[in-house]
Every structure is written in structure tokens, then in C-alpha cells.
């Protein structure tokens, strides 16, 4: 199971404690998290389902590469960090 952690700054808008979910890609993991917390989706993904412009996702130490497809692979014990970028403030 991957562990997904969200930036503190998101907590003030929508409740999003760390979540554990299965999935082979970032998309799969996140969709499982959103299934239990549907409002969260729109805070992270845009109208086309891509990562929002000023958000970053790290899979372990690596910055997400496929920002529109979210197809980056996720290992069995991956740590996924959903962070806000420093731009866009």
C-alpha cells in the first residue's frame, strides 16, 4: 500500500488526513483516495483530470513526471506527497 500525505495548507480547506491505498500508478492510488473523499479531487486535479498547475506530487523522492496522465509508477511501499508548489501564491 502506498501512503499519501497532503500539504498542511490543504487541510484548512478540506479534511485530508494521510491515506493508504493500493495502485500501480499515481492515478490509481489517488482515485482510490478520492473515492472516499470526493471533494478532495477538485483541489488537486483540474477540470481535465490533470494535476493542478501549481501543485506538485512526489513519489518517494521523485517529482511526478506525467502531470496530465498521472501514470508514474508507484511501488508497493511508496510514499506519495501532495505538496503545493512555491509558485502560484
Amino acid at each position, binding site marked *: 500500500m502506498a501512503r499519501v500525505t497532503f500539504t498542511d495548507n490543504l487541510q484548512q480547506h478540506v479534511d485530508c488526513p494521510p491515506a493508504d491505498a493500493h495502485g500501480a500508478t499515481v492515478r490509481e492510488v489517488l482515485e482510490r483516495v478520492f473515492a472516499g473523499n470526493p471533494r478532495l479531487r477538485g*483541489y488537486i486535479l483540474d477540470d481535465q483530470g490533470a494535476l493542478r498547475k501549481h501543485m506538485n506530487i512526489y513519489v518517494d523522492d521523485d517529482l511526478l513526471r506525467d502531470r496530465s496522465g498521472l501514470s508514474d509508477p508507484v511501488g508497493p511501499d511508496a510514499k506519495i506527497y501532495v505538496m503545493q508548489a512555491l509558485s*502560484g501564491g
Partner: protein
Amino acid sequence: MSKKIWAATRKGVFEIVRGKGGWAIRKVHFPAQNCSMLLPDRRDGALYAALGHGHFGVKLHRSDNGGKSWTEITSPAYPKQPEGEDAEWKTYFGTAIRWNLELVWELAAGGADEPGVLWCGTLPGGLFRSKDRGKTWELNMPMWNSPRRKKWMGGGMDLPGIHSVCVNPNDSKHVTVGISCAGVWITKDGGKSWDNDGKGMRGDYVPPEQAYLMQGQDPHRIAQCPADPNVLWVQHHNGIFRSTDGGANWTELKGVKPSVFGFAVVVHPKDPKTAWFVPAEKDERRVPVKGQVVVTRTRDGGKTFKTLRKGLPQKHAYDICFRHCLDVDETGDRLVFGSTTGSLWVSENQGDRWKTLAEHLPPIYCVRFG
């Protein structure tokens, strides 16, 4: 007369009330949050606020108890963008335009006979309608599918956007929409078909041969007179225009002092000949003329204008009033306007005299009586 003012700013929504001691900030809603647009709906008392979180996208909130509490409602969302479509609609400088809600630039209530109907103008260029107080939204497809839409260009912003929606109080299916840059679009069937062929509006930023094409116009803001909805006032990028036939023909008001440039316009609710503007030096400069903040008012349909400055800063003042930052109440006597640099002024006598309500607010995006 209205005793409450809402000011939506880059850093919170300020509720300002008139008590015995005069006007005072009563409460800050959404403190430190960016609010691009606010609508007090006079039909049912609901309040709507569009928050533009830099990172987390645009979120709509509604209050049904005058602001005591707010609930997040659904945001307008663009439909799935067809594969390859991004090659077809680009900014003039070549960037593909994504079908994604970037900004709520206008919120307007539908007619009195259509409770719960809302209109929402957005960037990039989408006009949305809700029939259930924001529970669901629908993109207006006749406008979106118009071949002209792919020629829309940004005005002020990089992306084209919709900033004015005027619903005819006598006919809810008659809606006049202002788009930067796509001119004035008018529907008389509730949005099923659109007319974008008004005459007389002039742009000075295109080759002379194209100056009068309506689709290239940059109206900064449209105001419709409730008492005579055929009268429309437009503060445009390079001038002031007025129509007395519902937007079919436009007359340019030339030579208005101190300037014909500005962003905001409001019209007296009962007198179609009375309107107010907040002028600035023309486009490239965008500062109050001579560093003096003034409001201009006409009472004769634009033949003459009076410059109103009592109570406003007249030396080294660089406040700019954006499109939605000037409002008039339902009596036509009380006015309020706010600035990009956080000042707010109110008048109780049609602009003859102004009082400073605040000088240190965040940049102001929208002020509304209600």
C-alpha cells in the same frame, strides 16, 4: 438605502455595515483567501462567493444565513477537452488554452421569475448557467460552439474572459454579455442563440479596417438600466459607449474629461441617463489623471459629465478601480467604490461627496451593496 457593503478582495471578504457611528467593518469572511467575485442575490437573500485558491483551483461557496456560515457548492467545470483541440484555440501568442476554470469573473442572478437561476462568467471564455443555486452548472454550448469563439483574445488577462452578464429585468431570456475580447453578445431566447453584430463600437488597437468589428471589441464592463433595459452603458478599452436600442447600435461619447479610459461603470437604477465612471489615464498608463482620484457622472445620457472629487485623495493617489469595484444601491443615491491598492469610498449623495471607509485593505476585486 442599502446599509451593507460586501468587498471581495485578494485576501478575504469584508462585510461593512452602517450603524449609528457610520460605516465600519463588521466581519472578515474567508480571511486571507482570494475572492474574485461575490453576489448577494436579492431574490432569496443568498450570498455567493467565488474563491480563487492559487494552488487548489476555484471554489464556490454559498451562505443562506447572511454570511453566518458558508457551504462549498459545485464550481462550474469545463467539459472534457477533445483530443487535439488545444491546437485549435490558442492565445494570440501561441499558448494552447486548456479547458479549465481559471477565474470566476462574473456572477449574476437570473430573473425574478426564475428563482435559483445563476449566470457565471469565467476565464477562459466560458459562460455557465445554474438552475439550482449552484448545485449544478452547465456551459452554454451555443456560445461555446460558435466558430467565433476560437478567435477570442485576452483583454487585460492572457485568456479571454466573460466579465459582464446583464439579465433584462423585464425578460429573463434576454441576456447581454460582455466579453474581453469578443465584444457584446446578446441572446433573446435564454442562451439558445446569440447575436454578436452590434454596430458602432470602435477599437483603436487593431488595423483601421477592423476597428468596427464587434467581435474584436474590448468592453471592460457593461451596465444595463433596470428601469429602461434597452439602455446600456459600456466602459470600453478606448472609450465610453452607450446604446438606447439594447446593443444593436452604439454611440461613442468622445472628449469626456479627464479621460475616457477606465474599467467600471454603473447606471442609475431609475434614470437611464445617469451613469458613473472612475476614469484613469489611457490604457498603457493606468493611473488616475494627475494622481487625483475622481468619479465622473453624467445626468444627460452622456452629453455632459461632471467630475466628482470631494472627499477623494487629490495628490499622489494612484488607486485604480477595476471592473466590478463600483456599485450603486437600489435607490441610486448611495455609491461605493474600491481600489486595487485597498482603499474604499462611499457616497450617500450620488457622488457629490465621498467618505473614506478603508485605506489598508488588500487589492479589491468586487464591491456589492446587499
